[in-house]
């Protein structure tokens, strides 16, 4: 159970929040002008990286506000939270935090000694 800092309410338990998937996926302004492929990309395709991920959260059992967060998916650390209308933080901000627990390699999972 991780702690999440709602930009409006402060630190609260994870159980008060719901995850909304990848952030910064903007709904196209003129869907009709898009090709089937481009529209399909918008509707069905999302990134799922191991490591730094920009994602959306909503404080469901709180202020009900949507906000964005930068999370390291391999350590579950939330590195930054910011409001929906704020600029997407640059990836370089999080370069020094790219560590996974137990010294696992950054790709794949499992016991380091076992993987060798």
């Amino acid at each position, binding site marked *: 159970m991780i702690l999440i800092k709602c930009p409006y309410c402060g630190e609260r338990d994870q159980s008060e929040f719901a995850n909304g998937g990848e952030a910064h996926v903007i709904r196209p302004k003129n869907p009709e002008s898009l090709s089937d492929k481009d*529209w399909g990309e918008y509707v069905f395709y999302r990134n799922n990286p191991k490591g730094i991920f920009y994602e959306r959260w909503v404080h469901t059992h709180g202020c009900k506000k949507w906000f964005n967060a930068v999370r390291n998916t391999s*350590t579950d650390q939330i590195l930054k939270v910011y409001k929906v209308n704020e600029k997407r933080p640059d990836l370089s901000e999080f370069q020094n935090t790219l560590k996974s627990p137990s010294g696992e390699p950054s790709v794949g999972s499992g016991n380091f000694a076992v993987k060798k």
Partner: protein
Amino acid sequence: MSAINNNCKYISKKQVKITFDGNTYQAYEGDTIASALLRNNIRLVGRSFKYHRPRGIYTCGIEEPNALVQIISEHNEPNTRATIKRVYDGMEITSQNRWPSLRYDFGAINNILSPIFSAGFYYKTFMGPKGFWKNLYEPLIRRSAGLGKPPKNFRSKSTHQYHNTDVVIIGAGLSGLAAAKKFINTKYKVLLIEQDSYLGGVLKNSNKVKTINGLTPQEWISETEESILNSKNITILKNTLVTTYNFTNHLIALEDKFAGKKIDLNKSELTLHKIRTSNTIIANGHIERFISFRNNDLPGVMLASSFEKYIHRYGVVPEKEPVIFTNNSSSLSLLKTLINLGCKPKAYVDSRKKDNIETEIKKILKDKEIPFFSDAEIEGCDGNKKVETITIRQGKSFDKIKSSMLCVSGGYNPDIHLFTQSKGLVKWDKNILSFKPDTPFQKTITLGSTSGNYSFKKLCDEINEKLSIFKTKKVSLDINLNVPNKFSIKELWETKIKNKSNWAKSFIDLHNDVTTKDLKQAITEGFDRIEHLKRYTTNSMGTDQGKISSINSLAIVSKILKKEISEVGTTTYRPPYAPLSFAAIAGRSTYEFYDPERKTSIHSWHLKNNAVFEDVGQWKRPWYFKASENETMHQAVQRESKTLRENAGILDGSTLGKIEIKGRDALEFMNLMYTNAFSKMKPMTSRYAMMLGEDGMIKDDGIICKISDQHFIATTTSSGAPKVLADMEEYLQTEWPHLQVYLNSITEQFSTFNISGPKTREIMMRVFPDIDFSNDAFPFMTFKNFDYKETKIRIMRASFTGELGYEIYISPKFGLELWEEIFSCGKEFNLIPYGTETMHLLRAEKGYIVIGQETDGTVTPIDLNYNWMIGKNKKDFIGKRSLSRPDTSRADRKQLVGLSPINKKDIIEEGQHIVELNELPKKITDPIKYLGHVSSGYHSPNLNHSIGLAMIRGGKNLLGQKFFVTATGKTKNIPVEIVNPVFIDPENKRLTS
């Protein structure tokens, strides 16, 4: 024979009686089940998991792999660790996994058959034929292998408690207490957690420490505890076990509120502490490990430090003349303890070379004339259900010694479970031959033997150094020891078996019955990665998680693979540290508290009128009303449906979701959220509308009432209301923040009644004599507001049954009053209440769909022939673009049709398949062509035959064709004709006149 240590201060003199397998025994208050049984010379307490071998008490704590018992007097609680559970007067205990009795267990035949039960036996043996696993093998294995029987149904009153602290100290032993001392009267909020009911750890469990700061260990513990209790910033939790160390320093600990007392079912039995802390100090010590030798599982074999703990902590000497077998220096304190009590070990076997053994040990052995074997090991032990003779190998010679107990010490492992759960890194330490904490991942500090520091003298410096990040004073510890300060150990994991035989067993995992031979075999078969090996052999996968043996197995594997142990690596330590009861996790969220129940304002009336309820989301909705005691559901629904179409019926529709949409841009917002076009819609009219996902699939439906361009009320399905509101809110906040729209859930603000049937207008005129209900004044799909008594009501002309109908909205405060008024007016018109089942039947006759029944997340409005609902001239709405994707415009998509049986007596069942064959073949060789499924099936009392709604591939073009519907338990299919889904009043005459 056992003896008593009268110096023990932790056991009261009060005697209690317990029963074990039907026999009554004397014990003392404060005893665990294990110490009570040892007091009574009971060694055999259970049978093993796989081979049903006799097993005894191996340890004196949470690490116990063998002594698991069933507590009959506590709702039959299974798999209780006898080494932890305290006794009380009248406690009833039985052993587990044996039949007919513990001494004569039929399952022990597995031990004779054991050569075939080697590693991977289940995987290799129970392969086929198909269906045998589910019907034969699994039930058989579950019966013969395993542990206790499930507990009886009981209502737990366990509670959850939340903490937010600065520091949590796990373990109140020497290092934990010394660390806590540093925080006395400081600004830090500290939680000190101890698993036992007494503080002190190693100080109370052994005589390793002679004095601290000039005080006896007991005096020092009392003094420290008192000063901690006087300090307002520190809380002590006793009888509490930290089971889980999560991310962001979140700990879960389980407190046993009734340790040593009979459980009062009216009180909370367990408290689950959920702790959020800034810093965690782990000081929960070490766990002794065993050594594998032949028959190292016989009752009578026990870990040396556990043997010592029974003497000091519980005042019982399990055996006056045991044999001691060790590979390290720590057994000196056990030796001294026994000598002080006038007991004399039968032999002392040390695997270290004579020169490396401490002179103090050699002196005691010489003075007391105890047989001494250095550079020697135990080959194995033998006996009938207990240790009788012990074979010692020294060089090439073998000695047999008669003794009933064997104390083993294979060294100590720092208890790194919680540290690794916190994702800290561990490293191999050659001096202690074990893994110890290295780099922490969170704000975690390990102290004392947990950190791999086995030197008492260095402890004080370690604490002061590691806790220097806190603004606290230094502590001083002046410790005098009974044992050598320098820990010395010789590597020894397994001893050689003299006579190799298929039946000779040297165990590596006592809980899951894994032998050292299984490890070797698994490696030979190619499972040479430790995580694979663990799963293949089930090594260290028991409920004890291999606490006394997992490092041993890594060592044995590394030897076979000719690798360093650090290269082999450890398996993953997962929470919980020890099993915890589901009752504790569930807490109070059981039975009626599991999920809230929502009731409408008419609920009491429904109860009085014999409603049978159905759960819709959290709502309790009347399903049908029983007219008489013996009326079946089918009869009630047929009666309700027929009466409604002939007279009138009323449904409590209060559960329907209602959302108010207000604001400058409400019209634009509604045009974007729903498929329909609302711009040209006149104020005070309503419209049936659909909401799609961005993929074009139907998510929800409802009636939208337009009060003005700035004010709408949307109704939703009963269970979909929260999701629809959340989706609207999401789009407003994230995609269209420029729209000025406010949303409000008003579901609970109104009681809603749906009244319909040909006589409805007459009834309404009777209830509301001042309102003009004529078709011209009050046409279909319009609504109006009226004053009614001291409140206001809204009436809308709408219908979900296909008959003339009105929906009445009123404040719940006046709901029941109006409902009863309607009934008194409707009596002469034969008005009946009806439930959701009748509603479903009537709407199916009319061809109306239900979200979640006709739709399943793969259905578009076009599939339902609802093209008229799509605002084609709108530039955009959610899902619009997807409706022209190639996949959504395919001609062979499943589309809504009606089904009518050709033989009118046949019954069309919901969920059945639609096929081209009139009969299913006896043996199916090729897949049968599947055309679609029956989404709704009812017997229509108004048509007097069965009807169905179905989703069929390319259904729109199949009208009039003949197909077949499968039937439960029959190979002969039902011939049906594809018809228009609207069975009743296709011209909507009843609705609109």
